[in-house]
């Protein structure tokens, strides 16, 4: 193999390694994590794929109401809320990043990220 060919081979190996690293770093995530925030402050992050058995998270929000969040394998919902409209409870479970659960009176937002959908926002 000539020196030129060796150089080319080395360059190709490097390029391939670089491309592999690029693809690895930019791979679509498929690891849904629920981010729970109260008035914009992160209070809990739940890896929904790591949930073995259902459990609840009690929350006291800045609006003076309470929310009980129910976590199950792969999905999450608000089971009980002290707010008057109950919109968050009626929404039921979410399992992907399409639509967050929002309790306006209590400034609670549950948003799922990293679900692999590669979306920036949801309209609806």
């Amino acid at each position: 193999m000539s020196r030129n060919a060796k150089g080319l081979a080395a360059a190709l190996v490097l390029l391939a390694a670089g491309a592999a690293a690029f693809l690895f770093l930019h791979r679509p995530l498929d690891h849904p994590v629920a981010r729970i925030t109260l008035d914009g402050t992160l209070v809990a992050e739940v890896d929904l794929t790591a949930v073995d058995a259902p459990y609840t998270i009690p929350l006291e929000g800045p609006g003076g109401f309470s929310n009980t969040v129910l976590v199950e394998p792969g999905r999450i919902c608000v089971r009980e809320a002290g707010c008057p409209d109950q919109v968050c409870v009626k929404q039921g479970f979410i399992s992907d990043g399409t639509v967050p659960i929002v309790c306006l009176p209590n400034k609670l937002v549950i948003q799922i990220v990293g679900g692999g959908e590669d979306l920036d926002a949801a309209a609806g």
Partner: protein
Amino acid sequence: MTAARRLLALAVLCALLAGCAPQTKQVERTVFAMDTVLTLTVCGTDRSACQTAADRAVTELSAIDKALSATGEDSFVWALNHANGAWVQPPETWVDALLADALTLCAETGGALDLTAYPAVQAWGFTSGEYRVPDRTELEQLASRIDYRAVERSERQGVRLPEGMELDFGAVAKGYAGDALAAWLRETPGVTSALLNLGQSSIQTIGERPGGGPWRIAIQDPSGEGTLGVLTASDCAVGTSGGYQRYFESDGQTYWHILDPETAAPARSGLASVTVVSPSGLTSDGLSTALFVMGREDAVAWWRERQDFDVLLVEEDGSISLTPGLAESFTPSDPGREVNVLS
């Protein structure tokens, strides 16, 4: 190849690969305003410029909300709605300009959008969460007081509403806010792009997503959880109206928040959701409501006449129609789902 040239080749490769790595800084803010949660994502080359811009955006949103809130007792809208027929001066010129633009849209849509439907919205309990179904007499009375043409504007005296009438900017405020923010964000040095998610029903896109390409926006399936498809968008506003967004059930009937100004009752036009894509947030926001009220036939006729926006219509039976401008940018989640391209 000499060692020096090999080193040079390596350096070039490293530089190329580094170029692929995301350089864009991203700043996010969440605001509770306009009766919803707003998420602002500001991207650019300079983190501190993005932070400053995002903070300014939050401050401006709060100011817009304060002036336009129908429930805040120190707002312009509150003062107007409780003036008993007296003139009220808008606090700033943009409020009057917004009112003028919104009233124009009311007129252009033949009253399918009507800012003065607010007393009916209240009567159904959509502002308080204490839902009720008004009887026929009450609805007739409410409908008789819905008429955007009765709103008077005077350069010298301000704005006046006949006694007993009230207005609110709920159908256009978020779209307007998106326009106002986008105008200066586009001119802000260090900011290259932004996504203003103004409570999902109104989304403003500025530039492209970090890493390149248009922003990817899921369109919610009006029939339940999940997405109908993905819409790609850059430098435009996306407004969606659907009966599923806010509703209540009573005696087995579903009543949603989009009211027909003619009847003061929920608009049942056969449409389940309407998504309008336009350069203007005000237009996409207000028009999605108006077209929902009109129904498919009138909405399509209106689009054919205007042609200056794009629209995606979902009917109650699940069928999807869209204008040619969205044929390339909308991808249904179910590849087998039929999408009717309008002409």
